[in-house]
């Protein structure tokens, strides 16, 4: 039985679970499953065992740091780690070794987490799944022939299979919520500015968000408590009080007004019938827990998709311009082709996209005067086969996750059941900027009223 992060933390606190035994169990799953799942680019076994023993010593001597002390985690390989290669899953950074931890890595280390290694990503958090890189793409623990989604692909695979109890992700167009959706997890993209982006290799400066993935919303809240906070060296970091997310989970949904953005998942990007049914069931459940539920109308999903994609590729091309000019062929095919589109955007096009962004933000703000949360899909349905993922998905159907990268609002993907193929389904909840605690409390209430968290991938049993 794989414990949730919260369960493991409580057992460590009670002295019924040793951080050493917990870490050994996770490393055993890494050794057994990762040759199939490819979630890790690099494991740090010796370091993990040393950190687990140190955590065990602290527990034994009554000096436990806090709820994350002794918890096995890992970082997406765009999070810079001192003395440990940070590759972005790219040939270009195959031998890049940062000299300092980024703020999130540092905070989790200081919280006593046990780091098991660095996790697979889509190349530079954008191009994937790719089969022409130095490491293979991560695979879905529910069915290794299936896609994890990305770009936090390794984190999704590692958490779902119990190799770690939580991990870092980044989300520029859905890269936390996508893997959470297809791997059956909770994945939370906080409000832009709540978590420092410093020390995380950038994709698109104005759209990048850092956040956690874990088995449950409660686990995500515990991890976010140790991620969020002002960083004066990140120009986008918000200097404002940060609530206690885990402590606030009990707020529930009583009296909340939830708006279902039905036209997004039924018309603008029609999702599977089972996903629609799970959204309707979630709406009914939340109503039963005391929320009021109504449909809301927002701008067409394609407006957010186009706006976000144009900004994303333009900012990404700017970040990578020297390498795109000098080392184009060192990138994987998917990333270089997608990012090259940014070279074709004029200055005026980019400004129009950013003006469009403000209009979209205003439209959502106006709609949310009448509702506290938005409910829609976070993925089209169950995970597709990994070798059938379209290269230009954003051109085929508009992204369901991009809207909240455009607006910067907090957004959560959680498991909402299982489809006809036995693979996870998901819903997405979003809140107003800096009302992250409300989103997490609603997700936690939903999870507590459903049984979806009782089922792990058979491969991990």
């Amino acid at each position, binding site marked *: 039985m794989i414990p949730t992060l919260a369960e493991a933390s409580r057992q460590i606190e009670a002295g019924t679970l040793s951080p050493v035994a917990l870490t050994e169990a996770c490393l055993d799953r890494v050794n057994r499953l990762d040759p199939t799942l490819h979630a890790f680019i690099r494991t740090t076994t010796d370091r993990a065992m040393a950190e687990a023993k140190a955590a065990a010593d602290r527990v034994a001597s009554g000096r436990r740091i806090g709820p994350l002390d002794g918890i096995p985690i890992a970082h997406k390989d765009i999070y810079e780690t001192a003395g440990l290669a940070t590759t972005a899953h790219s040939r270009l950074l195959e031998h890049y070794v940062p000299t300092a931890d980024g703020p999130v890595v540092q905070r989790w280390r200081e919280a006593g987490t046990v780091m098991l290694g660095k996790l697979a990503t889509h190349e530079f958090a954008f191009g994937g799944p790719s089969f022409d890189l130095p490491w293979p793409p991560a695979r879905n623990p529910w069915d290794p022939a299936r896609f994890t989604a990305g770009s936090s692909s390794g984190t999704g695979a590692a958490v779902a299979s119990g190799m770690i109890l939580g991990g870092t992700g980044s989300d520029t167009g859905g890269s936390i919520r996508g893997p959470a959706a297809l791997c059956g997890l909770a994945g939370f993209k906080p409000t832009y500015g709540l978590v420092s982006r410093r020390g995380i290799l950038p994709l698109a400066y*104005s759209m990048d968000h850092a956040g956690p993935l874990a088995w449950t919303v409660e686990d995500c809240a515990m991890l976010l408590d140790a991620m969020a906070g002002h960083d*004066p060296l990140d*120009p986008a970091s918000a200097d404002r009080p940060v609530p206690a997310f885990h402590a606030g989970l009990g707020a529930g949904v009583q009296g909340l007004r939830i708006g279902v953005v039905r036209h997004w998942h039924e018309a603008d990007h029609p999702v599977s019938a089972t996903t629609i049914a799970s959204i309707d069931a979630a709406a009914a459940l939340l109503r039963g827990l005391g929320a009021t539920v109504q449909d809301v109308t927002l*701008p*067409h999903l*394609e*407006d957010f*998709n*186009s*706006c976000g*994609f*144009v900004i994303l590729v333009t900012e990404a*091309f700017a970040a990578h*311009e020297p390498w*795109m*000019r000098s080392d*184009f062929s060192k990138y994987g095919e998917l990333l*270089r*082709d997608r990012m*090259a*589109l940014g*070279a*074709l*955007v004029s200055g005026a*096009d980019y*400004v*129009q*996209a*950013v*003006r*469009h*962004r*403000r*209009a*979209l*933000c205003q*439209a959502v703000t106006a709609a949310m005067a009448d509702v506290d949360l938005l409910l829609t899909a976070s993925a089209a349905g169950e995970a597709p086969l990994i070798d059938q993922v379209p290269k*230009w998905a954003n*051109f085929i159907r508009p992204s369901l996750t991009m809207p909240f990268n455009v607006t910067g609002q907090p957004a959560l993907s959680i498991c909402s059941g299982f489809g006809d193929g036995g693979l996870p389904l998901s819903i997405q909840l979003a809140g107003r900027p800096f009302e992250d605690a409300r989103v997490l409390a609603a997700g936690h209430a939903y999870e507590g009223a459903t049984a979806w968290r009782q089922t792990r991938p058979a491969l991990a049993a």
Partner: protein
Amino acid sequence: MPHYTEAEFETIVRRAGLTLDASQRAVLHEVLPAFEAMLDRVRTNPDASNRDRAAEPAHIFIPGQK
């Protein structure tokens, strides 16, 4: 919807400083219409009305802020 000619596309690629082989050029040229549709879309308001000339970008610049 505007669509680049091969010559126009070559000019843009050259100005961007990219060195593309024939297959890479072909891939980008093939998806350009879809990308151009996105660019067209951001030139309009969400409600498709004319955008006020004074409508500001979302980026914020506050003098003196780090």
